[in-house]
């Protein structure tokens, strides 16, 4: 029988529920699902487990990894080939190019994408904005204006959790907004040294310094969901966070458009995506190979894509999924993604390890968080960014 051991870090709450749906389908199709959840350790625990399993010569069949890490594992020869399934299911036809770039190595499919999260969202409390007569800002200048007004009114303009990845999330949306699509691609994707050290980057850091002023003093270490709570309760006006924040609003029974507004961060039609995927490792045994194929097929099936992304708050990684049950935010995300894909404005998030693998993402995060949490000058931060990225290459 098809068997698959699945190593993942979706261990609790909505994520686990979503995965459970997959497991159920898998089982119904006669598969044997061996669950291997590992959360904690700051999300790194799973990475440790994966390495020790690979070193022990006993890798799990499917592993939740994403972005360039997939390529690195493939380069190390650890991943199997899903081309057969892909061909049968016409993946080439239903996946956007940006996603295909992630899950393909050397022309072969080595992983299956599960979903797409948009990272560059602003979550705003309309009632609070209304207090100062403002709307959700559409340019960074407007953002600053609104924020100043809010601040003057004694409201925290930006709810933020001071963890490195959250700092980096805000940072990349600012890079996207201030620098523009091309700059983002040059600097953060291609790691062009000139772009990284340019005046534009200095401006980005200037904006970050401003943002720092819009954040309440107690932000360091705060979990993102607590920041979301602040927006929900009206203590803060906005939060910049990926679309998983929606789950928090939903859990509290809030309605989109009424109790909260989702809007993309100011940019020129850009779209920062974060996509989860399962990479298929080289495993011995027929049953395991069959398990992998079945799993891949199910994951990209329209049904599962719908169920899963409804639970998870994200949008499907493929086209052709029924839109009826998705909420307005999700629909906007889908539309924006399609538009961005067409105009080549679809970009991978760095903070979420899509555009860059661990080392560079780490260096990038280090500088972003170091700057945000100190009074480092923008010039110095720019210099540090160049150095750190060089060092990590």
């Amino acid at each position, binding site marked *: 029988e098809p068997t698959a051991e699945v190593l993942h870090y979706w261990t609790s709450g909505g994520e686990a529920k979503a995965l459970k749906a997959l497991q159920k389908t898998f089982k119904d199709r006669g598969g044997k699902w061996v669950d291997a959840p590992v959360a*904690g*350790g*700051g*999300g*790194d625990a799973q*990475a*440790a487990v994966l*390495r020790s399993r*690979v*070193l022990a010569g006993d890798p799990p069949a499917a592993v939740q990894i994403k972005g360039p*890490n997939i390529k*690195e*594992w493939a380069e*190390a020869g*650890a991943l199997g080939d899903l081309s057969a399934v892909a061909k049968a299911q016409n993946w080439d036809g239903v996946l956007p190019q940006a996603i295909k770039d992630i899950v393909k190595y050397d022309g072969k499919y080595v992983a299956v994408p599960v979903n797409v999260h948009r990272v560059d969202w602003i979550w705003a409390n309309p009632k609070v904005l209304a207090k100062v007569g403002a709307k959700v800002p559409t340019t960074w200048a407007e953002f600053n204006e609104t924020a100043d007004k809010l601040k003057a009114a004694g409201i925290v303009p930006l709810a933020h959790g*001071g*963890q*490195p990845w959250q*700092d980096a999330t805000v940072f990349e949306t600012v890079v996207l907004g201030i620098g523009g699509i091309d700059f983002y691609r040059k600097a953060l994707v291609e790691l062009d040294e000139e772009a990284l050290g340019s005046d534009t980057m200095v401006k980005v850091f200037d904006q970050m310094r401003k943002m720092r002023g819009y954040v*309440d*003093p*107690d*932000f*360091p*270490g*705060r979990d993102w969901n*607590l920041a979301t709570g602040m927006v929900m309760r009206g203590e803060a006006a906005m939060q910049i966070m990926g679309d998983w924040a929606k789950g928090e609003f939903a859990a509290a029974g809030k309605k989109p458009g009424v109790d909260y507004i989702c809007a993309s961060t100011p940019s020129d039609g850009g779209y920062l995506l974060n996509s989860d995927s399962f990479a298929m490792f080289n495993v011995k045994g027929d049953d395991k190979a069959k398990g992998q194929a079945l799993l891949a097929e199910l994951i990209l099936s329209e049904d599962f894509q719908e169920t899963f992304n409804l639970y998870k708050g994200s949008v499907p990684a493929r086209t052709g999924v029924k839109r009826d049950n998705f909420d307005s935010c999700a629909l906007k995300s889908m539309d924006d993604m399609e538009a961005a894909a067409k105009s080549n404005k679809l970009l991978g998030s760095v903070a979420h390890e899509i555009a860059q*693998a*661990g*080392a560079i*993402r*780490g260096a990038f995060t*280090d500088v972003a*968080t*170091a700057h*945000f*949490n*100190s009074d480092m000058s923008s010039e110095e931060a720019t210099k*540090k960014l160049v*150095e*750190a990225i060089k*060092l*990590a290459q």
Partner: protein
Amino acid sequence: MARSHGGIARKLERWIPQLVVSPGFLAIVVFVYGFIFWTGYISTTKSKMLPNYTFIGLRPYERLFQMDRWEVAFNNLFVFGFVFIVVAIAIGCLLAILLDQKIRAEGAIRTVYLYPMAISFIITGTAWKWIMNPSLGLESVIRSWGWESFSFGWTVSQDLAVYALVMAAVWQSAGFVMALFLSALRSVDQDIIKAASLDGASPAKIYLRIILPSMRPVFMSAVVILSHLAIKSFDLVVALTGGGPGYSSTLPANFMYEMTFRRNEIGVGAASAMIMLATVAAIMVPYLYSELRGQKNG
């Protein structure tokens, strides 16, 4: 009575102690020193995501020392280690002395002081994070009681975050130090105290000038155990500050973990591990040497 004492059995008997020690010793040799050696070798290779045995010399060390994050982590180890050990011993000692004053409910109080040792920081970390969070925890509570200027924002301050770690670490281990000292206090020669009070020393002076200075071995035991905790502090950072704000409160163990497993820099991670181990050895080897020496002589 004389029994034949045949060669092999007799010889074997002579080697029994060594034989008994050997499984444990071999395990340690392989699983500690073998692994240290392995790590040492890896730290001179171009290992990235997986171990790779291509030798590249000391390049990973160079990169390591160019990283701001490492500098911060390494310095933190000393600041954290030093302050933690000093404060934990001071508080443990104070508690022991307080408990030594014929306290009625000693057993219960002792348990209260000791229980944090039983609990992993993965568990209490969240609680401390909340308590130390200015808007959720103690600061807001005390301000709501009217003390508006009260401030306890250690975890959110670049400079104080390390001390937040210290505080939580002390919380966890002060009770243990207390237990060590308490039992030592209980074995102090009564006559010395009598002699000192005849000499006219007040109770405070007796403790400060006579009893505590004479408990050197306990201080040493406490230092050893606490430094072991300091070096292994990992969960603490993850749970309490996540290394932040920024990376101002990361410790080498966290750095090593992050490099090895998150950033696909196994070579650099191994290099940082080697530096950590060398630091430990620099402190522990002289201590062990003098300890075991001393025992031989007396």
